[in-house]
């Protein structure tokens, strides 16, 4: 195995094993209090909340979230591309620009249809 692959797999193993282990350890080793109020939602200290939060949320929040997700994934794709640009060559450069161009077109459409305006 190459050095970097070994390093990456050790890191993933550590994360996958160590972090859940720490969480479970605190559950068994640490102290906890169980009282009725502990598991209630935090609403500035008020107990009698008039509505629970299981109702539908306004669609504006969803739209902002989804649009952010799309562009975030685009950036995610750009990272490995940027690191290996030299090996991938001119073809990859043009292809990524086409990809970005399509998404910029989408952004333009989103801006024009005023979805991002909150009111």
């Amino acid at each position: 195995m190459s050095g970097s692959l070994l390093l990456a797999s050790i890191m993933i193993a550590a994360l996958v094993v160590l972090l859940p282990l720490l969480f479970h350890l605190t559950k068994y080793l640490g102290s906890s209090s169980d009282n009725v109020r502990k598991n209630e939602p935090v609403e500035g200290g008020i107990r009698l909340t008039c509505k629970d939060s299981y109702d539908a949320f306004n669609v504006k929040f969803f739209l902002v979230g989804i649009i952010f997700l799309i562009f975030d994934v685009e950036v995610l794709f750009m990272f490995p591309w940027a690191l290996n640009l030299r090996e991938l060559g001119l073809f990859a450069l043009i292809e990524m620009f086409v990809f970005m161009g399509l998404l910029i077109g989408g952004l333009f459409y989103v801006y024009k249809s005023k979805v991002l305006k909150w009111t």
Partner: protein
Amino acid sequence: MDVSNTHLLDEAVVTTTIDAVINWGREASLWPFVFGTACCAIEFMSTAASRYDISRFGAEVLRFSPRHADLLVVAGTISYKQAPILKQIYDQMPEPKWVIAVGACASTGGFYDNYTTLQGIDEIVPVDVYVAGCPPRPEAIIDAILDIQRQLKREKCFEVRNTEFKGKLDDA
């Protein structure tokens, strides 16, 4: 219903060096929840400002959600109307948690001995350190945090705290 804390291992295991390590971690990064109501809250704001910095002592991250905090700093007068709010916030904090009563009003009701002021928050939550003053100087508040750190060092890290406390609002 009173506050019942549970613990799996209880007194079966003795931990010394682990105590030292974990308590060092806890004391150097106390996350205060500032339950500030009145004048003492202004003095606490001064303590958090750049002259009497409390972030020197690790308590930099002032969290405003009880779920993220481990040190409840009650700064100001607590009235009877405010008491259930304080109790709810205290109960929603995860263990381990410490409580500082800053000022005369939080400790004993101050000079408001009347129909509306709770005569000390120790009627509803267990208090670890009381700070006298009206309002106490920022140095006194920092001394309280240092006192909590000193108390922390002596504790067993996996022990449950405050099992016997029964406050006035505990039956609700």
